[in-house]
Structures are given as structure tokens and as C-alpha cells.
């Protein structure tokens, strides 16, 4: 059977909005070719068909927020040869990691009338806090072309070619005028990892950090520049505290300006 030689790929969901796994179905031009090259062995959002593990590649979306999921991720790891986390929830804890700055016990009654029915952990954490992760794709959501590149690289036994510079580099490459210098618009581009092709500045708005902190980000300097633009300390805290709030550099940068 031809299927036996195709790599088995599984998609797993933890706490998330489903947007990153939807990116796979949003590859309209590539989907049938990708589906022809791999065996989609477990992808509940798209299929009832479930093929037993082990899997050659697991794509993991979402963060760990419940005791049950903290157990389940170990089962996924054991069933997977190569495990890739996809998106800000899986790589940094996601927007739901905003609970990490508060006491989750204060959160539950705001949403739920019977807190005793709710089983949840105090913190929303990245997958890599629980298991070894082989590769990660950043973004809220991920860039779907990164996903196609990842699958293509794995099929051909090479390293995926995913950009790791800052959003600033992408602005320069596409000739977008700097929104911070030219229009005084606060922008997280200097400290945010590339990947979106500097989308927001090309729409006349500042980057708001979907791809998380770049390597060695100088957040102190950026925060001082924001202050010069009359941004309040509260707004600096809010800016760092979004989809990648619990990624270390952004967390520390936000705490530095918290009252």
C-alpha cells in the first residue's frame, strides 16, 4: 500500500481558538497536494478517520490549562517521533495566559456560576514547559506558508527555513516606511519575531506582537521610546501582555512597568 510509506501526521488540540490548525485547511491551493504526500492520520477537526500511532509528525496547537491536558500531552509526545508546536498558545501559553498574572480562582466566578464544575490549572503554559519540543512555529495565528514549508522540509529531510529576525527587518525588505519614526505610532516590531511579513505597518498600524519576542529583544530600550511617544505605563503593560504575554522577555518587560 502506498499509504504505508507516507509519513503519518497527527494534529492535536489543547486550549486554543483552532485558528492555527485551520491554517492547514486554509492552504486551499496546496491542500490536495499535501494530502497526497502525507497520511493525515489524526485530524479530528477535518476527519472522523483515526489511524493509531505512532506518528512521524505531530502538530500541537494550544496551551496546557487543565490537569487532564497536562497528562495528555505526555501521551502525545510518546506517540510522536517529531513534535512541532504551532502558534502562540502552544509556544507561549496564548492569550489565556493572562490568567497567570492573576489568581485564577478570582477568574472562574466571573464567567461560571458553579465554580465547582470547573477543573482548571492556575496557569496556562507552553507545551515546551511540559515535554521536549522538536520545532516551533510562532504566530497568532501561524503563517500558513510556514506550515507548508515545514511539511515540505520534513518530507525532504531538511531543516525548515523559517525567518527568525525582527518585524523591522521585514518592513525594510518590503519598503514599508517605519510607522514609529514617520508617524509616531507605537510599534512592537523591533522586539517581535518576523513571520507575518510586517503586516500591521503595511496597514498603517503598529505591530502588536503576534509572533512573540525575537531572540535577544531590547525591550528596555523600546519601552523608553514608547514613553517618549507619550504612551502610559498602563498601555506599555497591556502591549506586552497579549497573545505572547507569558513568553519570558515580554513577561519581564510588562512587569517592569506594572505599578
Amino acid at each position, binding site marked *: 500500500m502506498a499509504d504505508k510509506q507516507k509519513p503519518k501526521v497527527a494534529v492535536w*488540540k*489543547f*486550549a*486554543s*481558538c*483552532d*485558528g*492555527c*490548525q*485551520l*491554517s492547514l*485547511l*486554509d492552504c*486551499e*491551493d496546496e*491542500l*490536495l497536494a499535501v*494530502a497526497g504526500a502525507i497520511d493525515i492520520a489524526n485530524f*479530528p*477537526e*477535518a*476527519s*472522523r*478517520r483515526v489511524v493509531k500511532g505512532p506518528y512521524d509528525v505531530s502538530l500541537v496547537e494550544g496551551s496546557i*490549562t*487543565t490537569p*487532564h*491536558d497536562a497528562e495528555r500531552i505526555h501521551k502525545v509526545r510518546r506517540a510522536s517521533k517529531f513534535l512541532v508546536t504551532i502558534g502562540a498558545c502552544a509556544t507561549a501559553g*496564548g*492569550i*489565556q495566559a*493572562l*490568567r497567570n498574572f*492573576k489568581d*485564577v480562582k*478570582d*477568574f*472562574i466566578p*466571573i*464567567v*461560571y*456560576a*458553579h465554580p465547582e*464544575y470547573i477543573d*482548571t490549572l492556575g496557569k*496556562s503554559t507552553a507545551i515546551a514547559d511540559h515535554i521536549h519540543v522538536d520545532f516551533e512555529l510562532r504566530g*497568532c*495565528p501561524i503563517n500558513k506558508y510556514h506550515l507548508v514549508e515545514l511539511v515540505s522540509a520534513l518530507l525532504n529531510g531538511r531543516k525548515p527555513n523559517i525567518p527568525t529576525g525582527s518585524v523591522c527587518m521585514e518592513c525594510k525588505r518590503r519598503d514599508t516606511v517605519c510607522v514609529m519614526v514617520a508617524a509616531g505610532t507605537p510599534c512592537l516590531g523591533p522586539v517581535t519575531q518576523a513571520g*507575518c511579513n510586517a*503586516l*500591521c505597518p*503595511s*496597514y*498603517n*498600524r503598529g505591530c*502588536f506582537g*503576534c509572533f512573540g519576542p525575537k531572540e535577544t529583544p531590547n525591550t528596555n530600550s523600546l519601552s523608553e521610546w514608547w514613553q517618549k511617544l507619550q504612551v502610559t505605563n498602563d498601555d506599555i503593560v*497591556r502591549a506586552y501582555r*497579549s*497573545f505572547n504575554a507569558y513568553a519570558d522577555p515580554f513577561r519581564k518587560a510588562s512587569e517592569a512597568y506594572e505599578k
Partner: protein
Amino acid sequence: MKNRTIKVDYLARVEGEGGIFVRIKNGAVTDVKLRIFEPPRFFEAFMRGRNFTEAPDITARICGICPVAYQMSSVHAMEQACGAVVDGQLRALRRLIYCGEWIESHTLHVYMLHAPDFLGYQDAIQIAQDHPEVVKRALRLKKIGNDIVNLLGGREIHPINVRVGGFYKAPTKAELQTLVDPLKWALDAALETVRFTATLKFPDFEQDYEFVSLRHPDEYPYCEGRIVSNKGLDIAISEYLDHFEEQHVEHSTSLHSVLKERGVYHVGPLARYSLNFDKLPKVAQRAAKAAGLGKTCTNPFKSIIVRAVETVFACHEALRIIADYKMPDQPYVKVTPKAAVGHGASEAPRGLLYHRYRLDSQGVIQDARIVPPTSQNQKVMESDLYHYVSDRIKLPQDKLTWQCEQAIRNYDPCISCSCHFLKLHIEGD
């Protein structure tokens, strides 16, 4: 087998995590649960303390499939609170980006999530092996929906160009013009989709629903209008919480929503269509009639035809908006915050999505309420399961289980949305 259980632990081809549990005792259905075990994410809690301008970007993250719906309901709520009015071409652009989301989401559900049930396949990839032309049409149609969201929003998932007051950047007429030829093809493909869905086999399952949706005097509803039902409800959006309440039940991390006076109700394409048939353009009305639909539709399995009809509408509406478009002088109107409460509602692909925020004078959110369509449909999904299984109790287990899944997929449930929400078990001792 007088006593048995139908269980689906992890319901496939829905967005998010849920299951079905049906218990049959002495030949009668005694318990039906739509189990939602999607982990709660507490959006309403962490919206407190955020700036009113952040709501469209943050609430979009509730759902990767219908982020535009969250952005639209939230910006309308903020504008209502602050007394701002967004009209003219900016209002038209909001309808246009919503057209894109409906085309993308409906096409995804019709062909990739729902059709496999009717045709006996596990997924659309299997359909593609036997009927590649069908799946290729689906992917191209879906892509055109995404292209609209991309152009107007910057990207298809979690668009970045929507803001309170309008957009960060308005498209030029020439940019929108590039969508015209693809949309003309899409309109034909949507009509072909209606004809395709009309050939499917439907179980005899008419239900007496209370349909709830927006209704607007001049147009098929997206973001404005009154909230109406076929059983006498007719209220302003701001009166929503006076008439609906959410209940927290043990088997679901998604709150169950009910009409205070009459309990269970139904939102989504069937409700919108049945309450707004007269507002559909002629091309959509004719396609619906040719497909055998009346002016109302009470068979939830036929929601697949209604989604196709709504896709016809969305393509037609998008073409109309682009033809009438003149680039506005400013991409947004300035919105000044004030201490107030604002309500917003819009028609997500899956149904009515309500937002309410209370702001302080600086525009900081003091509290937030978000009621997604799938929470509102949980009770009607359980009710459908109860009636559906009761009439088909003699069916073999695997067949009945699959049909129960299909009965849930009729609603295109979006569980990530509602949790702030799905698992299928059918049980007989």
C-alpha cells in the same frame, strides 16, 4: 437491545472539543448530553482592565473560524457605548469583510465538515479521491471568501485591519476591483453548490423551533437590526440580557443560553433564512426555491442547503458593495471613550453573537459579557438529539452513532467559541 448507550468521545469535523452521550433505557431515551470539555479560557475575566480599543483584537482570538464576527460585535458595542456612528462606505466595508467570512466558513462547513456525512465519507480528502471536481470547486470558492478577508483585513485568520471606528487603512477601488472576476465565478459556484446540496438525501425531521436572529428593515442581517423570533420576540440589541439568560450545567464548560420566557431557541442559518427570506436577493430566493426550500426551513439537516443559499447571497452582496464603492476620505471615525455600557450583536456564520461592555471614562473595560452562537444552540442540539434518537431507536449502533454526530454537525458548532464550549457519548446500560 432495550438498554444501551451511544457515546462519541471526541466529535470530529467540528471546531473545538466535545462529545455526545445518549442513554437509552427500556427502549426510551432517558438522557441526552452534549458534553463540552474544551478547556475554559476566561475571556470575560481578562477583558477587565483592557482598553476599549483592544476588544476587536483580543476577542477575535476566541475563534479562529469566525474572528470577523467577534471583531464586528465588539466594535459595534464600543461605538454604541461611546455614541459613535460608522456609516456610508465604512459600514459597507464591514459588510464586505463579513461576506468574506460567510463564504469561507459556510463553504468549509458545507463541503468539508457536513457533506461527508451525507455522502458516507470520513472527510473531504476521501471525497476528493472519487469526486475531485467537487472538492476543487469547494477549495476555490473558500479561497475567494478568504481573499476578501485578506484584502480588507490583512490576513484570513485574526485580521489586523479592523478597529473601533472603522479600519486602519481603507482599500482603493482598484484593489477591490481585483475581486470582481473571482466573485462572479464564486456566485456561479455558490449556485452550483445549492444544486449539489439539493441532491443529498435528508431524513424526515421537521421541528417546531423558536428561531432567533437579527432583522433589519432594508437588508439581510449582518451587524444591525432588531433581535426577532417567529414566536413574538422583537427587541433592541441592548435589551438582549433582559430576555435571555445563561445557565451553567455540570457537563459543559460552555454556558447554556435560554430565553427567559420560553426556554430553548435556535440561532444560525435556518433562523436567519426563515426570519429574513424576504430580504434575500432574487438570485438567492430563486436558487432556494429550485432546491425545494420554502420561505422557512425547519429541518436542521437541510441547513446545508441554507448555508449554500447564504453563500449565494454573500457573493451577490460582495459584488454589489464593490460596484458601489468609493474610497472614503478617512479610514475610520474618531471614537472618544466615555463611561457607558455598550451592546453589539452580529450574525456570525453560526448565528447571533452578542457582546456587552461597561467602560469607565478613560475607555477601560470594567466588565464584559460575550454570548456566542454555539452556547445559544446547545439546548436545541440536545433537544434535536433526543427527538432524533427517540424515533430511530431500532437503528444499529454504528449507524445511529454516526447519525447523531451528523445531527450535531447540522449546527456547525464552534466549541472553542462557546467556551469560554463539544464531546459525543450515546449510553444504554
